[in-house]
């Protein structure tokens, strides 16, 4: 039996694979015709996938009764934030090249960017307060605060849905997954 610490490290290493692959593609110029767009899309999708994975831990624990799953919630949550941060910085630095006027305009005038920014802004305090110290300091409030993760996930799916031109197949998959996770929270505790 592998100990808990190694399991978490393995999960983190696995979660960093997409970023590693992206870096490899960047270094070998194989990101395609529009590298900035490709980086933006990849980091955004991984942020969403890992956020949903993190949100699936609690229902999984309830179903399986395995409390040992709990630490993975933080691992996946932090990985999601890592990709969201890459996604956000790519947009800020590579896409807009720090054109602040354009950035502010986008955040306030483009609903899909408003939604994406909202998701990122909601994840930030969760990442900051993910340490043991903060969990202790916030006590019961911590649990309430961290329900923001659901709100962030909703905002992220809306962000994705609103940016596609006509084919919502992909965002629909994520919306369905999120729907299942939200419904799972409604099932009363055993």
């Amino acid at each position, binding site marked *: 039996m592998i100990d808990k610490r190694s399991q978490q490290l393995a999960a983190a290493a696995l979660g960093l694979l997409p970023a590693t692959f992206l870096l*490899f*593609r*960047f*270094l*070998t*110029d*194989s990101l*395609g*015709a*529009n*590298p*900035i*767009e490709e980086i933006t899309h990849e980091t955004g999708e991984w942020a969403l996938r890992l956020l949903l994975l993190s949100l699936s831990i609690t229902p999984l624990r309830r179903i399986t009764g395995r409390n040992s799953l709990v630490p993975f919630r933080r691992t996946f949550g932090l990985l999601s934030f890592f990709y969201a941060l890459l996604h956000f910085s790519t947009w800020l630095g*590579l*896409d*807009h*090249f720090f*054109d602040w006027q*354009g950035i502010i*305009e*986008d955040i306030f005038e*483009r*609903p*899909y960017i408003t939604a994406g920014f909202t998701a990122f802004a909601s994840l930030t305090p969760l990442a900051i307060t993910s340490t043991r110290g903060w969990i202790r300091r916030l006590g019961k409030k911590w649990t309430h605060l961290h329900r923001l993760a659901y709100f962030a996930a909703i905002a992220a799916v809306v962000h994705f849905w*609103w*940016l596609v*031109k*006509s*084919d919502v*197949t992909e965002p629909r998959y994520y919306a369905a997954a999120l729907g299942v996770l939200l419904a799972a929270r409604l099932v009363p505790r055993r």
Partner: protein
Amino acid sequence: MAVLIRSKTPADLSERDVTNEKHYWHRRDFIKIAGASAALVGSGLIGCENGGESAQASAEPPAAVTGLTKSPLSTAEDQTDYADATSYNNFYEFGTDKSDPARYAHSLVTDPWTIEIGGAVNKPGKIALEDLLAQHSLEERIYRLRCVEAWSMVIPWIGIPLASVLPRFEPTGNAKYVAFKTLHDPKQMPGQNRRALQWPYREGLRMDEAMHPLTILATGMYGREMPNQNGAPLRLVVPWKYGFKSIKSIVSIDLVANQPDTSWNMQAAREYGFYSNVNPEVDHPRWSQAKERRIGEFRRRKTLPFNGYGEQVASLYSGMDLKKHF
């Protein structure tokens, strides 16, 4: 005394006209940075240079086309890499991902190909592509292409002016618009199995837009026959309008009295107008059209009214409110 002045045609914008100085980086620079970082990392990752640049890179490029006439309407700007222009495409008939067309368009059979010409013409009928082209000489037209998604390319098309084709079918007085349709055959175009748009793809132009010298029917690019993913064997190119107006793989051309239905307008009328002239002043409801990323460059550049073809085409729209008729 006669002084020869080689005047620049309006289409002949150099990069300096568009961006005052070097305040964008070239993609090649982006790659140099990548190379430098690789050296720093010392990881030895470099060495697989073409690690999958595109699906197209390994495929055999189409046959070369010779005897092309150069056109004064061409731009002298740097051309987009062939690999980029053939691997980054919006052609929903083969899937909605930009890499789908290069991957799946091989199933399209482009020979034989017939085009049906009908509507308000005295000489309607079906015509084989080679007969349509037989009496024309092919020209090279290097045009800017601006996608509604805020990216752009510079592509050396091969084609003939639409204005030299339409009169052969003798349009009647009722011909006010031209309506185009793409092939509808889910066996050849697997993307049509899903309803990403209402098939077949439809586009249209007002008669004066169709007869404008910049408007061409293209049969090739980069000195070669048209790759399937770029709209083989016959597509429209209207360089002052967003790319989706330049309909691909055309099977029918109808001259009509009323403004025809067009695919993206049917999909979302609030977002895509019939005219869809490139206009930095009129944002897409969901994103800005003020700037664009030229494929191969790092920094965004400013989008020009009518994609920089304003001197040639602005007069077509005099007196029209282009914010209303977007």
